[in-house]
């Protein structure tokens, strides 16, 4: 049994994840309950030696009414990634900030707060980051209708809608080229 499988067994025993599997050879994904995230990350960082924090991202599961936070860490010697995932409610999303474990989480959390509206409790600086003067729904949520927003806020240049599809236009030449 190699390192990553042993690691999976250890983590399964300690944090009883809802789901743990290998999306890729050197990537282990575990989905833990909200209260186990800090414990799992602390264990990975301090005991297992996953010193490097890769990224935090957020997935919008609109149909299930959930946001999924994905914390990815990297072991520099073993060359292994672990993704610690957790599901939070989409209505009024809240999670505790983990910026004290890795400083760069400040930035990730701030971005997710801005783009998805997840409130990170205890974050020192949840304020405007990339957007300016943004009002309304955070733009990265899946139910944010970009086309509707664009129609309301910007003017189109006429002529765009009449454009032919490049595929139709180059059709014959393209088919000929493919036949070659």
């Amino acid at each position, binding site marked *: 049994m190699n390192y990553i499988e042993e690691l999976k067994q250890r983590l399964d025993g300690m944090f009883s994840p809802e789901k743990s599997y290998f999306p890729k050879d050197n990537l282990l994904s575990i989905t833990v309950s909200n209260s186990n995230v800090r414990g799992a990350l602390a264990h990975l960082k301090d005991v297992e030696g996953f010193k490097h924090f890769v990224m935090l991202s957020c997935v919008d599961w609109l149909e299930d009414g959930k946001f999924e936070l994905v914390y990815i860490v990297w072991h520099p010697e073993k060359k292994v990634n672990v993704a610690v995932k957790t599901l939070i409610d989409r209505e009024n999303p809240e999670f505790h900030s983990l910026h004290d474990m890795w400083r760069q989480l400040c930035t990730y959390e701030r971005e997710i707060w801005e783009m998805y509206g997840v409130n990170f409790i205890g974050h020192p600086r949840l304020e405007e980051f*990339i*957007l*300016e*003067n943004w009002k309304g729904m955070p*733009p990265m949520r899946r139910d*944010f209708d*970009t*086309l509707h*927003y*664009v129609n309301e*806020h*910007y*003017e*189109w*240049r006429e*002529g*765009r809608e009449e454009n032919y599809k490049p595929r139709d236009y180059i059709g014959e030449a393209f088919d000929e080229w493919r036949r070659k």
Partner: protein
Amino acid sequence: MCTDNPGVWEYIANWARKHSIWVLAYGTGCGAIELPPTMTSRYDAERFGLRGAATPRQADLLIISGYLATKSLKRVIRTYEQMYDPKYVMALGSCTINGGMYWDSYNTIKKLDLYIPVDVYVAGCMPRPEAIIQGIISLQKRIEEGKAEGAKKYRENIEWYKKNQREVLGDDFLPDYTWNFEGGI
């Protein structure tokens, strides 16, 4: 100064302007990557009298290289207003014309000429250095014929431009002093 025939002076001035365009390349979009080869030895734009300027106040031509997020539009307007007359704007790439492939993006503008006057558009996604040079040459033609009057248009229609800018940027968008002083923009 020969006031009864300003056409001659204007003609001479335009001839001179045409041959010394200093460029402020504001890399807002992907098109910015085409400017280094245009400027350096491969395409050598300096043979057309083109060269880079360090600051807006020394530049004649503002090249807007692609899509503009509303956030960078704010900076572009500010930059444009800091430039001295005569000044020209070249808009590079389809994003500046109609939004390009960011047509349904929530934070990029779709029509640049609503916000600042554009003297020459270069179509393409992204335009090659040859296209940029073609654009420069047609800009030079327009300068020589005295048709590159974007700055004048901006001054005359300032209310309209400001209204459009305010619409996308919100009210607290720019400090007044970049344009509202004696002697123009």
